[in-house]
């Protein structure tokens, strides 16, 4: 079975081309879908890439969460299709209410772009199945609003249901306050929904998919998805 990814492009999305290039490098076929489309048929996985949908005006992801494409996205999710939201895409999923919690401004009240380490807490999701639990990945973050907020009950339920997929950590894999770049609750960098078919993360795997750029850890994520869908190994890690 050939795997097809759909990349949703909102006005203001700006990581669409990078994401497509990284998928190509992993041997995955992908197609852009403009936000006014109303169907997402034929895609095993839908990516909401990074950027500034609608300029991030009002709140990040708020206006995009009402795009014409959104009903189709909900149908895709309800049917068990995979969705990954990267950075701004994660913020859109939160605003849609598909993932719990909300994003606040970084603790430093500044935009941050740098490489960070994240710990793989859950390797039994379609998005991380090629990782080992406890593995440390190196990927860049680049955001102003990545300070993940959730109330205590919500956090407990995320942990109990094993929905915390990635946490900010140091190079040794310890989740310390110093290794938390933005103040996120429980060092959370990525979570999935209870059904484990929707994944949102702040780091950019598409920017860590080429050794020339300093890391190939992001490929693990794209290849996990492709493999979990097709049931066979594709592309080459490393």
């Amino acid at each position: 079975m050939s795997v097809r990814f759909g990349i949703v492009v909102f006005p203001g999305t700006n990581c669409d081309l990078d994401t497509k290039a990284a998928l190509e490098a992993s041997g995955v076929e992908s197609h852009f879908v403009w936000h006014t489309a109303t169907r997402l048929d034929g895609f095993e996985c839908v990516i909401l890439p990074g950027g500034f949908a609608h300029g991030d005006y009002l709140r990040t992801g708020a206006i995009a969460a009402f795009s014409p494409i959104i009903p189709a996205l909900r149908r895709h999710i309800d049917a068990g299709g995979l969705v990954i939201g990267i950075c701004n895409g994660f913020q859109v999923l939160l605003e849609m209410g598909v993932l719990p919690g909300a994003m606040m401004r970084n603790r430093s009240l500044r935009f941050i772009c740098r490489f960070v380490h994240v710990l793989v807490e859950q390797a039994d999701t379609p998005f991380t199945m090629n990782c080992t639990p406890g593995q440390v990945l190196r990927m860049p973050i680049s955001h102003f609003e990545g300070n993940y907020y959730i109330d205590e009950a919500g956090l407990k339920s995320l942990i109990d249901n094993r929905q915390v997929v990635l946490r900010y950590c140091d190079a040794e894999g310890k989740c310390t306050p110093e290794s938390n770049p933005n103040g996120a609750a429980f060092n959370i960098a990525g979570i999935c929904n209870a059904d484990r078919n929707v994944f949102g993360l702040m780091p950019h795997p598409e920017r860590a998919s080429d050794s020339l750029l300093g890391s190939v850890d992001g490929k693990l994520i794209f290849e996990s998805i492709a493999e979990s869908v097709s049931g066979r190994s594709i592309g080459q890690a490393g």
Partner: protein
Amino acid sequence: MRRARVLVWLKKDVLDPQGRTITEALHGLGYDLVEDVRQGKVFDIKLDDGGVDDEALVAALSEMSRRLLSNPVIEDYSIELLE
């Protein structure tokens, strides 16, 4: 033509880093009488109400506030008709 104002605030138990930074900055400038600052958003909305009554208008505004202008996970809102 009517005007309405919607105020959006972070919920009380959500930490407001911006408000805290402003409080500190004001103290730094010597305004010691300031005890606490909370920062919110305000929207002034011009409406062409087409003769709807206040109740209907507030209902519409509440819906907009809930759906778009605020994020109910972290924010509360209030509505005021101005004239």
